[in-house]
């Protein structure tokens, strides 16, 4: 049965059967599909995900070890110390971190990502991370990921040596829109950290934040730029406008546009772990969450985010059972 939309027919052959992701112009065509084509786009994206990634879903928990007071000016972020945000600086102690790792593992999650709101880690933070990794590895059976901002080569090597198997560093938005969103560092600096992480043998988690006022063309540009990096994982965030940030008055992204983006990102990156991340509750709600999981998503962040709350863990885990999607089992890769 054909969808009646040329780009979806092309994608069926190119992505599903041949395993080649859509190019930027093709991604844009998917993002511009009419509303009535969204179910067909999601269905194809789901088939692509099953074909190239399998049926299982990767579950991860994330936690902030150092909240707030960041010197960078990412306009979407409530943790920047440059904005009049209500988020106060706070450090999490290691026993609480280990406790959270245990709780996360108890949900069946295989990933636990430790995040710090920094430009890049200093010696104090690196020492904390080393201690945290040792404690978690001693007490919890879970893979550890980190997100600590921009790294030096030495820090990349240290994290790899300590057993961090995945490092998160998002592109966030298209190169052409990045200067509208961040002025304290460059796109190239972000790419540099991403490249070093891959070269060191860690899995690269490199995500997107859409709904920040970028054009549809820039959304396609971002998907293509992410695909070119070939990250192991792409967390897909939808802007949750935070009080006190420059984007606090940005309207919440339309749910249909979010679903188009899910399908388009999957068709651009057929083999990548595509994770539901922040903002989905606001943008998509319960129904949209289900549609996305049946439309190319194959990973979720379980429970809360760094400064905001997510859906209850049980709600997502029950949904995975209902959809017959097994949780990916732990494979210690390093």
């Amino acid at each position, binding site marked *: 049965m054909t969808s009646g939309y040329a780009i979806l027919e092309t994608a069926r052959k190119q992505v599903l059967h041949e395993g080649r992701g859509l190019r930027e112009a093709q991604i844009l065509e998917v993002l511009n599909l009419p509303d009535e084509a969204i179910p067909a786009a999601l269905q194809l994206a789901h088939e692509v995900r099953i074909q190239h990634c399998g049926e299982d879903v990767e579950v991860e928990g994330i936690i902030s070890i150092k*909240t707030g007071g960041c010197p960078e000016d990412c306009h979407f972020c409530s943790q920047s110390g440059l904005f009049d945000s209500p*988020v106060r600086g*706070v450090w999490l102690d290691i026993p*609480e971190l280990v*406790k959270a790792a245990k*709780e*996360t593992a108890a949900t069946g999650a295989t990933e636990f990502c430790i995040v710090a709101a920094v430009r890049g880690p200093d010696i104090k933070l690196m020492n904390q991370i080393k201690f945290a990794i040792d404690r978690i590895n001693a007490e919890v059976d879970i893979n550890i990921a980190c997100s600590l901002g921009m790294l030096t080569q030495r820090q990349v090597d240290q994290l790899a040596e300590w057993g961090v198997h995945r490092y998160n560093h998002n592109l966030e938005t298209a190169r052409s829109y990045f200067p509208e969103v961040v002025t304290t560092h460059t796109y190239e600096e972000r790419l540099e950290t991403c490249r070093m992480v891959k070269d060191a043998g860690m899995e690269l988690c490199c995500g997107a934040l859409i709904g920040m006022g970028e054009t549809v063309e820039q959304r396609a540009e971002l998907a293509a730029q992410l695909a070119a990096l070939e990250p192991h994982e792409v967390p897909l965030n939808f802007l949750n406008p935070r009080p006190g940030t420059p984007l606090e008055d940005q309207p919440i992204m339309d749910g249909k546009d979010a679903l188009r983006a899910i399908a388009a990102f999957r068709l651009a990156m057929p083999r990548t772990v595509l994770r539901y991340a922040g903002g989905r509750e606001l943008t998509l709600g319960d129904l949209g969450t289900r549609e996305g999981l049946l439309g190319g998503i194959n990973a979720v962040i379980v*429970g*809360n985010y760094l*400064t905001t709350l997510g859906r209850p863990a049980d709600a997502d885990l029950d949904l995975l059972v209902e959809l017959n999607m097994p949780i990916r089992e732990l494979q210690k890769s390093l």
Partner: protein
Amino acid sequence: MQEVSTQLYCGHCGERLGERTTPGAHPPSSADPPSPGHERCEQRLAMEPPRYCASCRRRMKVQVTPMGWAAECSRHGTLAAGAAS
């Protein structure tokens, strides 16, 4: 954890609420009726922890974990939900 008995300020935006006293309650509570002008704040507090102490408007130290959150006011103690409590 200390009891906080008077809800004077919105936990989301920190602005003053209409005076209402809820003895023994831990503000903000989704069971409370929204205060005029803060209905949207009440909705947001279902999706994020409070940032301001409802008694004194101090910004609280908030730690979110995957399964819970805790918000500490230096004067009025800690509010918490889920595994962080």
